[in-house]
């Protein structure tokens, strides 16, 4: 038993970002409902599946990145059950021998979470309830989703809190993004969450969407089960569903027993055989993953753990950082990227991967800042313009006339010196003492041998004090 007595295991289903579906040539991205389907993904009689080699390669990479043992021979199976979103009323998935088994992933605190298995399967179609579930007496089916490749990642029951489950999903999606097999913006993540408290019955919350959804569903479920036990009531073994609006789970009607899917080998597909050498080669080709990269950043650039983690968590950001760090002081680059740049990204809801930022441009801007040829304020404006409008920072600085001349830089240096040496006057000025301002201006004039223009000195002092 874990110390708080909560035991959680996840079965995660994540859409892989291949161009075409798992068993046919249909595009995975489509706007209009039912515009990307064919006899194969519609399950028309006579059609046959052909495995998408790219999807298989992606699944293998995922298994290897999650430290799994990759099976040298594996195959697909049919999982048969009737449901309106199933084009064949069976799903082509893996059963006895999946792509990979016995892996593990480290949470951010270093705790190791076991991976039971990683396998490849097809997504069913999407059911659309136009007036909302329950309100309409019919459903529509959109087969655009039918046959999109999913990788299923099953964990051991090693997670001991909803927060750990969330952390695990963060680690997992970061790894998948690193492998470039998953697009957080367009690919969905769903999970079946198994949870029990204090060794009581295990409850499965099925088909929860998104990382936040999983965390919330588990929080509710843990509280609910603890509550039942506090009131000396029994936790029943059951399957529940999660309602995103009310953030609650409720028992699904009907079947309490395990469903019998009557698995058979998929006879339309042949077994996949890999040599030890092929597997080894694939493992060697894996990119450096975020945990390793974060450690390297700490050592190589002397960064603190938090900053290194933020940089490494996002593959593009990490890449950008390393490029910029070749040109400017790494610590400065790291601070600027994690604070200023990521602030804009998060505030404006941008996708860093889609921005195609130039490390050289950002490095140039940082050089200007370090040489005090631009103010921090100007640098911030320039990066906002770059991220939101795509205007190059150097261009922006020039167009807006934000570059300071040599004299300004000298004045700025003098101001900084005076402010640093006159802490008391600065503090007074912050409380609104006008006399302190005059005093400070006088000091700067003295230092610059009266060459500075007083109004400019006032302006720079005001900016600096505001921060």
């Amino acid at each position, binding site marked *: 038993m874990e110390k708080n007595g909560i035991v959680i295991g996840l079965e995660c289903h994540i859409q892989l970002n291949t161009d075409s579906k798992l068993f046919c040539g249909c595009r995975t991205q489509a706007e209009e409902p039912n515009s990307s389907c064919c*006899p194969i993904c*519609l*399950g*028309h*009689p*006579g*059609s*046959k*599946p*052909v*495995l998408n080699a790219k999807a298989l390669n992606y699944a293998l990479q995922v298994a290897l990145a999650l430290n799994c043992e990759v099976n040298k021979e594996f195959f697909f199976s*049919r999982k*048969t059950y*009737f*449901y*309106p979103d199933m*084009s*064949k*009323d*069976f799903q082509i998935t893996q059963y006895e021998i999946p792509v990979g088994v016995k892996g593990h992933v480290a949470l951010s605190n270093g705790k190791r979470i076991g991976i039971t298995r990683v396998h490849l399967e097809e997504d069913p179609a999407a059911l659309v309830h136009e007036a909302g579930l329950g309100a309409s007496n*019919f459903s529509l*089916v959109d087969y655009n989703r039918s046959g999109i490749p999913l990788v299923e990642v099953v964990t051991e029951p090693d997670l001991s809190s909803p927060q750990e489950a969330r952390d695990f999903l963060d680690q997992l999606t970061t790894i998948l993004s690193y492998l470039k097999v998953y697009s957080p913006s367009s690919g969905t993540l769903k999970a079946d969450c198994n949870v029990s408290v204090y060794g009581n019955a295990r409850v499965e919350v099925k088909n929860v969407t998104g990382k936040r959804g999983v965390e919330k569903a588990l929080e509710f479920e843990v509280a609910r089960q603890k509550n039942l036990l506090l009131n000396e009531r029994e936790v029943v073994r059951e399957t529940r569903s999660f309602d995103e609006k009310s953030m609650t789970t409720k028992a699904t009607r009907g079947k309490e027993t*395990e469903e*019998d899917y*009557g*698995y*058979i*080998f998929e*006879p*339309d*597909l*042949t077994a996949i055989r890999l040599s030890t050498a092929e597997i080894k080669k694939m493992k060697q080709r894996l990119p450096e993953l975020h945990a390793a990269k974060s450690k390297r950043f700490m050592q190589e650039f002397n960064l603190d753990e938090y900053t290194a983690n933020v940089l490494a968590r996002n593959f593009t950001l990490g890449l950008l950082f390393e490029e910029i760090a070749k040109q400017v002081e790494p610590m400065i680059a790291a601070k600027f990227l994690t604070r200023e740049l990521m602030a804009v990204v998060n505030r404006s809801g941008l996708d860093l991967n889609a921005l195609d930022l130039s490390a050289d441009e950002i490095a140039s801007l940082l050089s200007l800042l370090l040489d005090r040829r631009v103010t921090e304020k100007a640098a911030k404006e320039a990066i906002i313009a770059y991220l939101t409008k795509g205007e190059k920072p150097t261009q922006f600085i020039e167009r807006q006339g934000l570059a300071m001349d040599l004299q300004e830089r000298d004045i700025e240096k003098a101001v900084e010196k005076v402010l640093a040496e006159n802490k008391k006057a600065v503090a007074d000025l912050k409380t609104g003492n006008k006399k302190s301002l005059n005093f400070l201006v006088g000091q700067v004039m003295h230092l610059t041998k009266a060459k500075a223009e007083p109004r400019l000195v006032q302006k720079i002092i005001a900016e600096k004090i505001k921060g």
Partner: protein
Amino acid sequence: MGEGLSIKQFVTEVKKGNISVLEHTEKILSEAEQSNSQYHYFNLIAREAALKQAGEVEASIKTGRNKGMLPGVPLSVKDCICVQGIESRAGSKILSGYEPLFDATVIERARAEGAIIIGKTSQDEFGFGTFNTNVGIGFEIPKNPHDIKRCCGGSSGGSAGFTALTKLTHASIGESTGGSIACPASFCGVVGLTPTYGRVSRYGLIDYANSLDKIGSMGKTVEDAALLLEVIAGYDSNDSTSLKQEKDDFSKIEPSKLKIGIVKELFENCDAPVKKECMNAIKKLGAKTQEISLPLNAKYGIAAYYIISTSEASTNLARYCGMRYGLHEKLEGNFNEYFSKVRSNGFNKEAKRRILLGTFARMAGFRDAYYLRAMKARTRLIREFKEAFSKVDVLANPTMPIVAPTFEAIEKLTPLQQYAMDLCTVPANLAGMPHISVPVAMQGKAPVGLMLTADHLQEKKMIQAALAVESACK
């Protein structure tokens, strides 16, 4: 015009302009239509499409552009093989109205050589039968061309029946899962050729049991069947189980006396007259023979076959639920109730029986004892065959233990007794070995067929032996 010609002779005449493809097509369509009320060989006769195709082929011949191997050759096609735009029901009511959006690979290949698709032939529903009496709801049972009191055999009964009936040049594309080409060929007195599993693409085949299904050819002669196989065989990237093989000139093979293995157990369990005629045929051949024993195949073949085939079939048939194609019913109740209604009304008795059997065999708790065990048994049975082929070139046995039974006799058989009739055809089918049924004699009004089986991809040997048997029994 064109009566009694082999495909090769017919093609020569067509290319010379001595036979009009349009007229010949019209003639065979009329025969199909006229005979259908009595014999019921066709579930659908594609008059319009066939004549359109015939017109195109005729035009290409007149301008000398036609380089095909089968210009103007009329082909009938088992109902379970998809033909674009032509209702393809696999003999089942549940597929009423299903017009495939694509041609099966075999149809595409046959068309490319100039063949004319004249219609979809009768079969047991989804191939679930030995006598072609298990037809779908609303379908007619085909009658034996030699004696209408007898069955055609199944499940490719319509293909065999019409091939035997018509005097015009004609061949048929059939499909075998456990003997569905050889059996009706034997009962109707035509040649039925089933290739190695994977030799012919299954793309466009409405599945019965995917790991066993093989599309093959049926013709009046070994040469006709071999020529059609040559056209439809070959690797196809749309079927993942298709084998990467060089194209073979099956139609240019000469007869040859190879070493024949006489399968002891498969002779033992046959009716005496059938046994006698088959032994006679082998004697006439004058080839070297050796008795071969296949005890495992004889003992476990049928059991393993029925477990695997029904397991796969029960998953294949799950998709027929009235949602996207085929039979629809009034939308009522929840999806489960609706699916059940469509399936209750759409499947006939034997389809329901096999769904139940197959679902049972793969259920948790029974799966190990049935499905997985049968899969393991199959591997053993293949090994037994392989050992036999280290001693002989081809194996011979009666195709069926009996001659075509009368409908009256069939009604008295229990399902288990019916399944037992597949004793001789099931082993080769389960092992995926190429086999051919050649007519060798008549037992009164009923033909007797001899089955020749070769090792995987040894179609050439099988055809050599079949040509020799055919000429010896003329």
